[in-house]
C-alpha cells in the first residue's frame, strides 16, 4: 500500500487529538506523534502542519505559547482551549459516524444480503 497523503480536514482533527492525549506540545512533537501513531502509513510533510496550526489558533481551538522543551530549547507550545476540546469531541463523533456508515456499506456481509 502506498503512503497516503493526509486528507484535508483530518489533519486538524489529528492535531487536536494529539494535543488532548499528550498535553501541550510543540509543532515538531505533534508532527512526530502523528507519524508514529499512523505507523508508516501516512506521509506527513511537516511544513503543511504549520498553516493548519495557525488556522486552529486563529479559530481559537488551540493556543500557542513560547516555552522550553525537554532538551532546553526554546519552542512554541500549543495546547487545547476549551473551545478546542469541544471541537475535538464533536468532530471525533462525526468522524466515527461517517466511518461506521462507510464500514457497513463496504463490509462483505452487506454485499451478500
Amino acid at each position: 500500500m502506498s503512503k497516503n497523503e493526509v486528507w484535508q480536514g483530518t489533519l486538524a482533527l489529528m492535531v487536536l487529538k494529539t494535543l488532548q492525549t499528550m498535553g501541550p506540545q510543540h509543532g515538531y512533537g505533534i508532527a512526530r506523534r502523528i507519524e508514529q501513531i499512523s505507523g508508516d502509513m501516512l506521509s506527513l510533510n511537516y511544513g503543511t502542519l504549520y498553516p493548519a496550526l495557525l488556522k486552529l489558533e486563529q479559530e481559537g481551538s488551540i493556543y500557542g505559547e513560547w516555552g522550553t522543551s525537554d532538551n532546553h530549547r526554546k519552542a512554541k507550545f500549543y495546547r487545547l482551549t476549551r473551545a478546542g476540546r469541544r471541537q475535538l469531541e464533536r468532530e471525533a463523533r462525526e468522524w466515527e459516524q461517517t466511518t461506521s456508515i462507510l464500514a457497513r456499506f463496504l463490509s462483505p456481509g452487506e454485499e451478500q444480503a
Partner: protein
Amino acid sequence: MKRFRALLLRMAGFCLKRQHDQEFASELESHLQMQIEDNLRAGMNAEEARRAALLKLGGIEQTKQAYRERATLPLLESLAQDLRYSLRQLVKYPGFAVTAILVLALGMGASIAIFTFVDAALLTPLPYRDLSRLAYVTESAPTIPLADISYLDYQDWKKLNRTMSSLEVMTPSAYGITTSSGLQLAPGARVSAGFFRTLGVAPILGRDFAPGEDNTSAAHTVMLSSNGWHKWFAGRSDVIGQSITLSGVPYTIIGVLPKDFHFALRGRADFWAALQPTGECEKRRSCHNLIGVGRLKDGVSMATAKADLNALATQLAVQYPASNSGQGAVVLPLTESILGNIRPLLLLLLGGALLLLLIACVNVASLLLVRSESRKREIAVRGALGASPLRLLRQFMTEGFVLVSAGSLLGMAAAYVAMRILLGLIPSDMLDSMPYLASAGFSIRVWMFAGAVALSVAILFSLTPLLRLSFANVREGLNQGSRGYAGTTWRRLGANLVVVELATAVVLLVGAGLLAKSFYKLLRVDLGFQPGHLATVGVIAPDIGYEKDEQLLPPARKILASVSAIPGVQSAALTSLLPVTFNGNTTWIRIVGMPFHGEHNEVNERDVTVDYFRTIGAPLLSGRNFTASDDAKHPGVVIINRKLAEQYFPGVDPVGKQIGDVSLTPKSLRQVIGVVDNIKEGSLESELWPAVYFPFEQSADSYFSVVVRTSQSPESVIPSLLAAVHRAAPDFSTLEEDTMTRRIADSSSAYLHRSSTTLVGGFAGLALLLSAVGLYGAIAYSVSQRTREIGVRMALGAQRGSVYQLIMAEAGWVTGIGILVGLVAAVGVAALMRKLLFGVQAWDPSTLAAVAGILGLAALLASYLPARRAASVNPVEALRAE
C-alpha cells in the same frame, strides 16, 4: 463566529506581517534544530541530518509562504502591492500624474462647490412643518400677476374659504430704534397671529402670538428672530417680557424664534410684530401690502384651493367693483414661490459644472489611453510572465482608484475654498433674500454626491485602458511594442473623445456667450435717465407724529434744503421710490372726457419734488416742469410719462387734459402739465409701465428717497449726505445709502445675470482650455506615432506643405465634427435656459458663429504645433527611429 474571528485575525495579521514573519521564522528554526538533533542521534552526520530535516519539512520558503498565506489575506496583500506599484508609476511619471490629478480636481471641485449650493437651496427642506401642504397665497390684478393681498380682502378670504385650515399674512416693515449711537433702522415684519403656527415654527424662548393678539385692542407684542436677538440683545435670555420702543411705539418682547428659521419672502427681519390693522393701508381695500401663507386642509390640492379663493375673489369683485374688479387669486406651493427663481439658475450652474467635469474626465481618460498605449509592452511582458487578465485588470483599477482618490481629495479641498469664496462674494442683502444659502456646507448629501462622482469617475478610469488592451494578444503586444505603430483603433477612439470634448466646450461656450450677451443687453437697457453722478439715500419717518402730509412736509423740506447745501451737490430732489426699483406702488387713473367702463387703469405713481427730473437727467418732452407753487394750496397737477401719453392719449396732446381717480372725485382731479420721457421704474428686465408723477408737496410719503447730482464722485458725497439728513430730521431713519450706478449694478436682476455669466463664463473658459489641450494631446500623439509614416512619405518626395495638410486635415475633421455636434446640442440646451436670457434668442446666430470661430481658432493653434513638428521631421532620422 469562528470563521469571523479568524478573518479578523487575518486582517490584523496584514498589519503585523513583519512581526508574524519573525516569530514564525524562529518557530521553524527550533523545529529544524529539534529534528536535526534527532537525526544526529539516529546516526547521520551533520550535513545529512540537516538535509533530511529540510526534506521532511518540504522546504523552508514553501512552508513560510504557505504560513504567510494563512496568516494574512492574500487578496489584501496583492492589493497593497498594486497600490505600491501604482504610486511608483505616478511618481515615475510626475507630469502625467500632476496633470491628471489637477484636471480631475478642477472638474470635481467645481461641481462639488456648485452642488453645495444646490443642496442648501433645493435639497435641504425649508424649515417648516409639512412643507407640501403650505401655499403661497396672493391676489392677482389685471396688470400685476402677484399683487399682494389687501387687509380687508384677506379678512374675507380667511373667514370664507373652505380649503385651508389656516390662512395667515405677513408684510415687511422696518423699525427705528434709538440706541446709544443714535437712531438705527432694523428690518422687521408684521405678521398675523397664527403665522408661525401655520408654518409650524415654535419659538425657542418665550411664547408665540396668541390668537387675537393681532387686533387693534391688544397690547403691542413682538417676537425676535435669532439674528435680531443676538444683534440687539446679545442673546440674553431675560429679554422675554422686556419692553422695546420700535419707531416710537412701545412693544413687549414675547418670544425668540429658532436659529434655523427664515422666511425668504421677507429676507432678513430682526423684529416680527403682531400685525394690527392700524396703518392707513389696512383700511383701504385697494391697498395691497400682504403676502399670504396658507395651510391646505387634508386632501385638498393647490388647484382646488385656488378655485375656492378665485370664487371668493369674483364674489368680492361683484361686491366691491371700485376696488376689486378684475382681481383673482394665486395659490402656489410655498417652496415654489421661494425657490422658483433660483432653481433654474442653480441647475444651470450645476449643469455647467458637470459638463466641465465631463471634459476633465475625457481629458484624463485620453491621457490614460495614451499611457496604456505606451505601456503595451509592459502589459504584454507581465501577461507572458503569467499575470492573469483579472490580475492585470485589478492593477489598472488600482491605478484609476489612486488617481481618482488624489483628485477627489484635492477637489474636495478646492470645492470647500470655492464655496467659501462664492458665499463671500454674494452681497449681504442678496444673501438676506436667499437665507437658505447661508446653510451651504458639506452636508451628508454633498459627501454622497462627491462619493458618487468619484466612484463613477474611478470606474470610468479603471475601464478605460481595457478598451485599448486586449489581454489575449500577448504575443502581438510583445512583437509590436518596439516599433512605432499608430494603432488605428486608438486614433479612432482618441478622435471620438476629442469630439466629445469639443462638443461639450461648444455647449458651455454658447451658454456663456448667451448669458454674457443677455447681461450686456441688460446693462445697456434704456433707463431714460443719467445714472452717473447720482447719490441716493432712503429716509423713513417715525410711525407716530407724521401721519398727515402737513406733518411730513416741513421735515422733508428741511432735508431737501440741507442736502442741497452740501458742497459739490448740483441739484437735489426727493422721490417716493427711486427708478430701477420695481413696478408697483400704483394708482388707478381715469381720464376726464374719455369713455370709461370701470376698468382698472393701473399706473406707477411716484411723488417727486420740483427738481427731480432735472436731477436724475430725465428729459421733459413737452409741457412744463413742476414749480414751487405746485403745492397743497394750488390746483392738483401731474406729469405723465411717454408710455402713458401714447397709451391713453393716442394722437392727442395730453398737456392740459385732466386725470382723476376711478370715480373722478373732484379732489383727485389733476391737470397734466407735462410729459417726461420713459424712466425705467421697474427692474432692469421688467417692461415699461405707464407712470404718473405727482408733486411731493401735494402728495407726501412717510418713506422717500433723497437723490442728489454731484459734480465730484458720488461716493465721496455719501457721508455728508447722511449727515445732512440726520441734521435736518434727527428722528428720521436712513437706509440703503448708495450711488445710483452701484444700486443698479447690485440690483438683483443685474446681480443674478452677472454671477451666472461669470460662473458659466469661467467654466466655459476652462472647458476651452481643456479641450484645446485635449486636441493638442491627441494630434501630438498621433504625430509621434506616425513619425515613420511621415518619414516614408517625405523620403518618397512629399513636400512639407502636404505633411502640414495631412495633420491639419486630421485635426480639421475632428474639430469640425466636434463643433457641429456641439452647436446642435448648444441650441437645445440654450432653449432650456430661455428663462435666464434677456433680449437674446437661444439660437442667436452671432453667438453661435463667435463660439465656432473661437473654438476653430483654438483648435487651429492646438494642431498647428504638432503639425509643424511633423513637417520638420528629418526623413532619415524618422526611418531609422524605433
